């Protein structure tokens, strides 16, 4: 059994760097952001429901208030970090071409950062009323 099991091992040199980008920190980051996302998602749903049927002026007033803006900013930050790791995991699982994988990993980061900036910019603009 021992010699048989040895046949299934792959030399470290061939494995190194092939696991994509994940490790303990990725796993832990996904758990922490996931746990934080639970109350923040519930808060986001409550905020969305609160503006349903409201006109623009009332919506701006609600979204710009600290009680809505602060949870929304936290929700965006935490969930974008969570989805950035999540797509990275999906990409490293299913994309096998090295160059394509690198391009998609960069695209993931670019998309995630752009989404986070756009959402935070909008919430801050609503809050500060510029």
């Amino acid at each position, binding site marked *: 059994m021992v010699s048989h099991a040895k046949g299934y091992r792959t030399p470290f040199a061939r494995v190194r760097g092939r696991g994509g980008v994940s490790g303990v920190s990725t796993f832990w980051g996904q758990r922490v952001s996931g746990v934080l996302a639970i109350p923040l998602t519930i808060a986001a749903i409550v905020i969305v429901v609160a503006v349903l049927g409201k006109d623009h002026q009332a919506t701006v007033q609600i979204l710009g208030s600290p009680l809505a803006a602060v949870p*929304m900013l936290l929700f965006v930050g935490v969930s974008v970090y969570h989805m950035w790791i999540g797509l990275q995991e999906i990409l490293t699982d299913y994309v096998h071409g090295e160059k394509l994988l690198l391009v998609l990993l960069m695209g993931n980061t670019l998309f995630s950062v752009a989404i986070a900036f756009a959402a935070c910019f909008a919430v801050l603009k609503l809050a500060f009323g510029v």
Partner: protein
Amino acid sequence: MAETHMADIKAPRARPLSPHLMIYRLTPVFVMSGMHRITGFFLYLGTVLLVWWLLAAASGPNAYAWFTWAAGSWLGQLVLLGYSFTLIHHLLGGIRIMIWDMTLGFEPKQREALALATIIGSVSLTGLLWIGVYVTMGWTPW
């Protein structure tokens, strides 16, 4: 390594392959695990709608009117129904994984129950949310 040994190396045997998805029996745990990844992926795409909503509100009444028109259309309502279900499903799936991370609920009956609770819970909570919203809005949201 001595040179005499190099000649002894034979062509590598065909490596054993790990069986892929198709050979496994579909169990609730398996399906919910797949659903978690799929819903996560769609939530990733869904952030575009979240940003549209926030930027429209920040841009002004005209941009916001466009958003509410789209969201209020039957297609918009369908997309939002799917979005809310996806979000709630992923949320409950995450709680299920959190329970397993604490090494709880691993018994056959328990893990089956947790998987079923994810789908039953997400369908019912989404239904409750939408019925609640439609009733309080007088059946005409937006």
